[in-house]
């Protein structure tokens, strides 16, 4: 009895500093952002301050780029999720087979995950996608096509490609580990019953992977909703607004307009959108994690 009370107390005591710190970290910037979002505050016009009402929100939500940015954010997030999960499963299945030099193959496949986003974007932009000197241009000319100006003609697709390259290894590694834990006997037994590869995959492997897929989706979504460095380095959100997402739009307000009020309003809008996504995630994750 005494032990239990002690345990409870100690648990609370251990929890308190962590939760307090977390809470402060979550709430202070959020409150600051909400406060500034109702203020006239431009770093470059410090003399012009005061309560702004909903003006910052009005300007952010009616920004000509807002709707496109909203859709681009969703497009980037969903496309990369689909590419990495599907690609990760396929790659996982392939690497789960007997392969000579499997250790090295794994190392090669996982590597892109360790690369700084800025470096990845610079390398893709300059050395792969450049229409005059890039590798892609060279491949295109070898195949008899005209080189494609990727960042000019397919800006959003190019960004999705770069981001997917960075996250595919992560998905593959998690899904592969999950597959490898699948009971060999379970597969054997199913195989004995005459199940072919397809039904084995659909009825045994896929359900087994459900939780691993959930982990992948959750962690990736956190980062994909605010993809930024890749856009800044490659297209700068353009041409036009073709590759502007919400994070980039807020960047534009914060570090080109130096409009702290406007950027804060954007931040609040982004948090609300993120929370809507989080509600969906809770449903999805909640279901799979309960199991």
């Amino acid at each position: 009895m005494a032990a239990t009370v002690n345990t409870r107390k100690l648990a609370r005591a251990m929890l308190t500093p962590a939760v307090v710190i977390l809470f402060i970290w979550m709430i202070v910037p959020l409150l600051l952002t909400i406060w500034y979002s109702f203020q006239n505050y431009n770093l470059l016009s410090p003399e012009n301050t005061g309560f702004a009402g909903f003006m910052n929100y009005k300007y952010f939500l009616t920004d000509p780029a807002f709707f496109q940015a909203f859709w681009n954010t969703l497009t980037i997030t969903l496309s990369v999720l689909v590419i990495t999960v599907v690609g990760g499963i396929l790659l996982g299945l392939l690497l789960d087979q007997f392969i000579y030099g499997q250790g090295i193959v794994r190392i090669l496949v996982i590597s892109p995950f360790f690369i700084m986003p800025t470096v990845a974007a610079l390398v893709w932009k300059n050395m792969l996608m450049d229409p005059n000197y890039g590798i892609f241009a060279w491949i295109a000319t070898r195949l008899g096509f005209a080189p494609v100006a990727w960042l000019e003609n397919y800006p959003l697709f190019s960004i999705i490609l770069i981001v997917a390259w960075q996250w595919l290894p992560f998905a593959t590694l998690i899904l592969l580990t999950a597959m490898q834990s699948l009971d060999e006997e379970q597969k054997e037994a199913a195989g004995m019953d005459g199940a072919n590869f397809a039904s084995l995959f659909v009825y045994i492997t896929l359900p087994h992977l459900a939780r691993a897929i959930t982990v992948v989706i959750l962690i990736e979504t956190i980062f994909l909703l605010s993809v930024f460095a890749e856009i800044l380095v490659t297209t700068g959100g353009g041409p036009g607004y073709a590759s502007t997402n919400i994070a980039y739009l807020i960047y534009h307000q914060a570090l080109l307009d130096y409009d702290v009020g406007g950027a804060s309003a954007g931040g609040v809008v982004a948090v609300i959108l993120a929370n809507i996504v989080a509600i969906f995630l809770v449903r999805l994750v909640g279901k799979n994690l309960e199991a």
Partner: protein
Amino acid sequence: MARAISPQKKWTFTILAWVVALILFFPILWTILTAFKTEGDAILFPPAFLPPHWTLENFVTVQTRSDYFKHFFNSMVISIGSSLIGLVIAVPAAWSMAFAPAKRTKDILMWMLSTKMMPAVGVLVPIYLIFKNLGLLDTLTGLTGIMTLINLPIMVWMLYTYFREIPVDILEASRMDGAVLWKEIVYVLLPMAIPGIASTMLLNIILAWNEAFWTLNLSAANAAPLTAFIASYSSPEGLFWAKLSAASTLAIAPILVIGWFSQKQLVRGMTFGAVK
């Protein structure tokens, strides 16, 4: 392997796997190779796969222009420091949430995670002002602190999902034995928790190493890590691909090596819950 696999199948899969792996690795390989080219050779078209004239000149230029080891040291301190401090805070929190969950624990966790989806740039100015008033601008203390805070939600969440999978029965049993809490933790919980903690820590080292927004904007000369080092090589004038590649190679090499050696530990913790 219980079933015999035909050699033909073995080779098909092997070749397929190697082709895919090499395609995925190619951009990195290309960067490393370009680092050893002269600037002129770096933009040859059609491209020269291997450097026509191997040279270390780019590495020399990069080192004389900016002190690599200072940036490297800063990156190490920030990424490892923030991960360790993060663990000190996150382990107890996740432990309590997992073993003494309150009603809304999961909602709180999700809310915490959702705040991480807020673009960092929205709060740059408020944070900059706070840092300035506390004298934390351009200090390793400040950068380590902010990295800790940024990754904390993910750390707590990862540890929480991991800890939840530790069978509670064992704890109950040890409690029956009259084991006091610290014994419970040291002898029962900790050994089981190590893989999850290791994996959380590794992921955070990687994330902190590669974080380029806060580390770049809150540092100047003293505390600037490798992300700032890179930002001085995307040149607005003249050829720069080879120098940029050399700087990139230097910046990614340490984390790449750490990643290669620890990839198994990195996933083990994350998939524990997923692979009962």
